[in-house]
Every structure is written in structure tokens, then in C-alpha cells.
């Protein structure tokens, strides 16, 4: 993007609305949290939440804290390893299920039985089966993205217009050529959708897994066990401002991951950008 377009994007209507949206949200929150001071009575639910101003103060203090950043690092690494494993295994599996009727017949029933099991129900089993805490958390994270990616790839590859195959075949394409130049590109949009949905689930799962398993590897003292453990730890320690900091941190991390995937998805599907 040129400097001019950056400027236009920065001062554009979209940015203005985004800023208004966040400011209005923060003001309402602040007012709600401080309802006892100006209303005389504490509003239900919101009255118990720490106000954004004190959250900001707590956050400012945490920015210099190595433990906080370790939490970021640990959760991100777990999400990434689980997610990348889910892509590496899930995409070929989905494609194989789509192109081979025999393979589909053998794998799909088992797959469909395992799919509805919530990733969190796997946590105890994962802790027993895997040698380290770290591996069990990564495994549960992997499951969160895996099923979504497989089912999207499978659905995408199965719904390819039959005329594409007929044309390709008539023009002299071999099976491998059809797979490479028709099936694969036609499935890329579904891979992108499956991945971004899977990425969202991954963040849900990693946080819960960290809370249940007690933070895993880097645990030790304070907040060294990932963002989920960071929140849990803050709750146990009674620092409610930090709970909210942890929540917002996860929101930001998830948003950044989705943006990254969207950008990569756009790069791999140039023909969809033209609509």
C-alpha cells in the first residue's frame, strides 16, 4: 500500500467507526463498573467488573513483566503447534477422503464418531496418554482444529462441479493432473474457511486446557503457564484487574491470528479477490 492509501485508510469512515465503537464500549463499561459511585447502587454483573481504567493500570504494570509475556509466548506456541499439526494431517486426510471412495468408506464412520467429542473431554485422556503436560495441551489444541479442517476440506472437495472434471478429462488430463490442477485449487477456499474456523476453536481450547491442566511446562511461580493459566492464577490470587487483562490479551491474540490467516488465504486465492 502506498502512503496515500495508508492515510486514506487511517482517516477513512471505517477507522472512524471502529474508534467510535471502542470508545463507546469503554465508556459504558467504565460507567457500569463505577455505578456504585454515581448511582448509589451497584448494577448487577457489570458493577462487579473492574473498570477499564484500573485494567489499563494493571496492564501497564504487566507490560514490563516477563511472566506475562511468557504466557503469551506459551499459549501462542501451543496454538501454533496444534494448529499446524491439524493442517498438515487434516488437509491431506480430507483430500484423500474426498478422492478415494474406499478410503472414505473405511475412515468416515470412525471420524464421525470421534468428531462430536468436545476437545475438552479429551483433556484427562490426553494427560494420561502423553508423556508431558506440554504435549497433552498441544494434542487437545490439535483436536480443536483438526475435525473442523477435515470436514471443510472434505465438503469443499466433494462439491466441485462435475463439469470441471468432465472438461479436464476430455482435454486429456491424467488423474494426477486433475487432482493437482482442479481438485486442489477448487478446494483452497474451503481450506481457508476451515482453517480460520479451526484457528478460533484452537484459542478456545488452549485456554481451557491450560486452566484444567494447571498450566503445563513453564508453570512454576506466578504467571508462567500460558494465558489461560494466567487468568486462572489471577482469579485464585484475587487480582481481578489481571483477569480482564488476560481476557483482552486472548481477544487480541485471536484477532491477530485470524487477520494473519485471512491475509494468507487471500494470497492463495487471488481469483476470489476480484469479485
Amino acid at each position, binding site marked *: 500500500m502506498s502512503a496515500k492509501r495508508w492515510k486514506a485508510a487511517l482517516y477513512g469512515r471505517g477507522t472512524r467507526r471502529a474508534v467510535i465503537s471502542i470508545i463507546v464500549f469503554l465508556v459504558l463499561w467504565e460507567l457500569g463498573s463505577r455505578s456504585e459511585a454515581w448511582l448509589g447502587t451497584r448494577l448487577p454483573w457489570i458493577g462487579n467488573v473492574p473498570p477499564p481504567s484500573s485494567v489499563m493500570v494493571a496492564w501497564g504494570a504487566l507490560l514490563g513483566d516477563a511472566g506475562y509475556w511468557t504466557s503469551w509466548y506459551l499459549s501462542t506456541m501451543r496454538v501454533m503447534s496444534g494448529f499446524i499439526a491439524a493442517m498438515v494431517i487434516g488437509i491431506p486426510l480430507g483430500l484423500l477422503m474426498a478422492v478415494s471412495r474406499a478410503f472414505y468408506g473405511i475412515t468416515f464412520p470412525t471420524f464421525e464418531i470421534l468428531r462430536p467429542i468436545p476437545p475438552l473431554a479429551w483433556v484427562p485422556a490426553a494427560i494420561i496418554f502423553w508423556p508431558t503436560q506440554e504435549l497433552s495441551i498441544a494434542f487437545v489444541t490439535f483436536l480443536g482444529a483438526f475435525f473442523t479442517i477435515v470436514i471443510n476440506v472434505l465438503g469443499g472437495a466433494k462439491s466441485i*462441479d462435475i*463439469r*470441471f472434471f*468432465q*472438461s*479436464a*478429462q*476430455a*482435454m*486429456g*488430463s*491424467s488423474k494426477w*493432473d486433475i487432482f493437482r*490442477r*482442479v481438485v486442489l*485449487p*477448487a478446494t*483452497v477456499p474451503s481450506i481457508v474457511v476451515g482453517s480460520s474456523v479451526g484457528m478460533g476453536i484452537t484459542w478456545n481450547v488452549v485456554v481451557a486446557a491450560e486452566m484444567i491442566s494447571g498450566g503445563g511446562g513453564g508453570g512454576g511461580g506466578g504467571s508462567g503457564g500460558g494465558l489461560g493459566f494466567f487468568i486462572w492464577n489471577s482469579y485464585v490470587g484475587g487480582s481481578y484487574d489481571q483477569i480482564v487483562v488476560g481476557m483482552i490479551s486472548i481477544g487480541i491474540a485471536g484477532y491477530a491470528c485470524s487477520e494473519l490467516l485471512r491475509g494468507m488465504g487471500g494470497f492463495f*486465492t*487471488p*481469483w476470489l479477490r*476480484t*469479485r
Partner: protein
Amino acid sequence: MAAVLEERPVETTGKKMAITAGEIKLEHVCKTYGKGPFAKDVIKDCSFLIERSKLTVMIGPSGCGKSSLIRLIAGFEAPTGGKILLNGKPVTHPGRDRLVVFQESALFPWMTTYDNIMYGPRARGEDNQKARDMANFLLDKVGLTAFRDKYPTQLSGGMQRRAELARAMINNPEVMVLDEPFRGLDAMSKELMWEYYAKLFEESHRTNFFVTTDIDEAVYLADRLLIMTNTPMQVRAVIDVDIPRPRSLSSFFTSDRANDVKMQALSLLHEEAMKSFSGGSKAAADFVEAYSKRKNATTTP
């Protein structure tokens, strides 16, 4: 006797493209869908010849089995009875010797116009200078040079159809099969397509088999016009449209011969529509009504 392939170079603005024109013969072809009490004969004992180097147009009521017949000729499906012969040899599977241009665009959305056209040559490992030159030559022929690197979604409906014609032609099929290729285009673009398409045909005299429901399109394009019956489909009549080429679109429909052919074809189609109308088909009702109005308008002076 085995059919002798006719090979002759066709001069096309400096470049030569060797055209091999094939011939397709249908002998008592039948196609039944479903089994037992649910069996439905879509095509029954249908025989005709798609003549070498001619543009054969098939017209028939909608839903009469034309698209099924195309799937048989293309080799996507096998007939339940009879034979389909390309140059005397039975058709068993899809092949580049008979390429189909489908009703709606089947261009690959993830490829640019150029990559779409180059699909066939690349599939056969022929991404050489000759193929690239031919792709650019065809792009120019169908007026898409400026849209060489655009994706199908960036092209208009008419451009997509032209790109698809080019994608089929680069494979130099012995027979081009077109299944209502200009359906859904507005009247103006349709006429433009007819002109492009007629010109492409006249320059190559490749064997073409063109299926349509549009009577004007049929009469304007055809060397031979096959009029089909309603299901189960058979050939009702063959009209030779002996109007010299190139045909000027502006004066074509005012010529007596063209109008004769059109009226002849319409009355045959009307009989077919009447049959299916009396058989309870609602689809034919509009055609029957329109035909009766037209008849009244032409007979009253």
C-alpha cells in the same frame, strides 16, 4: 470402409492450423434412465449423421433429451442400446477428439483466461512455443487479448463463452460439441456471439454439432438442421439450410429462404409441441399459444 480423415491446412491470418474434421454417426441409440417400473426412455432408436466439416444444429423442445444425447456423444455416459461411432470407431470414453462446450461456463475460476486456454496443451505436456502462439492467436480471434490475464469472474457472460470456445479449439478436436452455449445471454450479446462463432466455423470448417432451443440461432448457424421429437427423442426431420456463407446477420432474417426454413422448422416443432401438450405437458403450452398467435398474424393481410 474406414473413414478417411481429411486433413487440410487452413490459412488464418498468416498462421496455419491443421484442421482434422471428424464424423460422428449414431446408429439406433437408446438411453434409458432408472430401472424396472421407474425406467424412462429418454432417447429411443435415434439415428443420424454429424457430417464432416459441416455445422449441424439440433433443435428440439426443452427437456426432450438433448443434453443426455450430448453426454453420450462426449462419452461421459454409455448408451443403453445402439452405437455411437467417431470415424467408424465406437466412442467409449471422453476424449479430446470430441470436446464439449457446456451450457453455463465451465471455465476454471482459479485460472486466468490464458491459463484456461492453455489447460489442454499443458495437460498433455505440450506447453511449448507452438501452443503458446496458438493460445495468443485464439485469444485474438475471440477478441480477448486485453483480458488475457483476467479471471473468469472479471469477464462478461459473452467473454466467458468466447474464452470457452478458445479453450476447446486449441485442442483441435475433430468434432466440437456445443450444448446451448449462448443460453442466458441477452439478445445483443447473443447476436455478437453468433457472428464470432460463425466466423470461427467458416475459417476452419471443423465438424460442429450445436444444440439449441433458439430457432433464430439454429437457422442462422446451421448447414444442416436436425429437428427432434419430444421424449423419447428421435430425429423428426432434417432440413438442409443451403444459404451461402458468410451470412450477413443484418440481412439474413429478411431473406425469403431463411424465413422459409424458419417457418418449416417452427411448424414441425409446433406439431411436436402439440403432441406433448395433448399428452399433458405444461411446458409446451406457451409455445403452442405463441405459435397460434404468430400464425394468425401472418395469415391476415
